[in-house]
């Protein structure tokens, strides 16, 4: 009888442990699935009146609603790892390999064109309903690929130093 109680006593924490261990991955998995749902950020229809990155850099006002069109790229790595943010290049500019001679409307991926690239690219940050940057890689969240032509809707963020960032709440992929 004593040994039975002892066995029961020893088994109890294991049983409790197993129960909680069994629940937590499922819960975690569910939470993950919710946070990975990028469909709410994908627009079914293309927004009107989109402007290019160069034009937006010059004309957009801080905080005003904006629709921006461009191609994902303009950098050796246009993605921010683990964040719903990416670099958008003005559609009129094409990128050539580093070391090749640039003609008008072209930039290379080398550091020689770093300043030019900064003028025709912008960072797009996809924000959630609370205005926080979504902490899921945009490739996973939205299924984006490099060189995809996208139209993003959201608000411009601009400061006196000339820094311009697109705070997006919706992305339309032209395919």
């Amino acid at each position, binding site marked *: 009888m004593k040994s039975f109680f002892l066995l029961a006593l020893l088994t109890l924490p294991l049983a409790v442990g197993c129960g909680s261990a069994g629940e937590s991955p499922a819960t975690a998995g569910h939470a993950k699935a919710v946070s990975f749902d990028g469909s709410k950020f994908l627009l079914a229809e293309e927004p009107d009146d989109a402007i290019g990155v160069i034009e937006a850099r010059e004309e957009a006002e801080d905080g005003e609603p904006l629709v921006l069109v461009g191609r994902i790229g303009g950098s050796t790595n246009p993605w921010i*790892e*683990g964040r719903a943010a990416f670099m958008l290049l003005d559609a009129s500019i094409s990128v050539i390999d580093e070391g090749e001679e640039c003609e008008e409307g072209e930039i290379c991926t080398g550091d020689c064109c770093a300043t030019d690239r*900064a003028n025709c690219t912008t960072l797009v940050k996809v924000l959630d309903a609370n205005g926080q940057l979504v902490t899921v890689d945009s490739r996973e969240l939205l299924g984006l690929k490099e060189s995809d032509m996208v139209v993003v809707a959201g608000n411009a963020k601009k400061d006196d130093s000339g*820094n311009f960032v697109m705070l997006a709440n919706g992305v339309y992929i032209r395919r």
Partner: protein
Amino acid sequence: MLGQRLLPWDYGVRNLFRRPTRSALTLGGLTIVVLLVLVVVGFIRGLEKSLSATGNPNVVLVYSLSSAADIENSSIPGRTPALLAASVDGVSRQQGVEYVSPELYLGTRISTANMSEPGMGLVRGVTTAAPLVRDQVQLVEGAWPHAGEVMVGRLVHSKLGANKKDLAIGQQVTFDGRTWTISGHFTAAGSAFESEVWAPLAELQTTLKRQDLSLVAVRMDSPDNVADVDIFCRERIDLELKAVSESVYYASLQKHYKPVRMLGWVVVALIAGSGIFAGLNTMYGAVVGRIRELATLQALGFRRRAILLTLVQEATLLACAGALIACIVGLSLVDGAAVRFTMGAFMLKVDSVGIAVACGVAALLGVVGALPPAVKAMRLPVVEAIKSI
């Protein structure tokens, strides 16, 4: 059953001592080949270790956008560390101290007391925040540098081509028109920092008449937070900054040195190849001189396969003995030897991989080197072989 067909194990062993000069010469040749393989693999492994040990996935390097991958050419505003600490979440902090290390990094000519010509060295201007970010750095002797002082890594003498004694604590080094006293020695777990001279940042800036920095190294709470520094740099294009994870930065340098590593492996293959040919040559000589003995063994009833195995056994024993000697010599003389390269200096590394490759080459030399001459000798008819001189 199998034992009856084979020659006794000690027959092959005794044969080695029957011709001591030949065995010793063969052993010497094999040892040199295996030692060469060990040195080249040690070079490759040392280079790889130096670059991989330097990169920490939690640390992000922030430097100038237009400096390519060359931090020496980077120039960023002196206010960058404060801006980063204030603007980016996830920076490691302890008791109000942010793990943000402003650094000035340059390659310059450094001379010690007994150097006829200054050597090209690497100098890093640091603050007391540096060890918080570069946690592999350990002060092993002396003290942290104060005004007019520097501390030196354990491979600086190799990078400079200087005598190690000239870099002892209390000795002086001269660079950029100023003489600095050595206050301490540090190690950095085999990373590239070990070939650097660390000076107090403010002192170095005054000496160089510079207000700017080369880079800021920031330690984040988690590797995931490195992305936030990247976002900051891409948002603030007015600062013209670039953020790269330290591990990614040094991995890219590893790519840069890929041809060197490939060349190293080609050299290993060439040495092994030439070793096999030399072994073949020696074994042909050894077997030809024993044709009568081998034919006699056949006449006694031993199968050709058994005699072949004995010859391979002899060669493999010699090769393994050579590998053993080479590994002992390698571990005692080659392991830890410093080699200078553009990024600084690194130590040759005789590790398990090097020893495995060296032993593999030795086994290959033994087996492949012995087989063809043994097969050739076995093809001769017994009567003809017994008559041969």
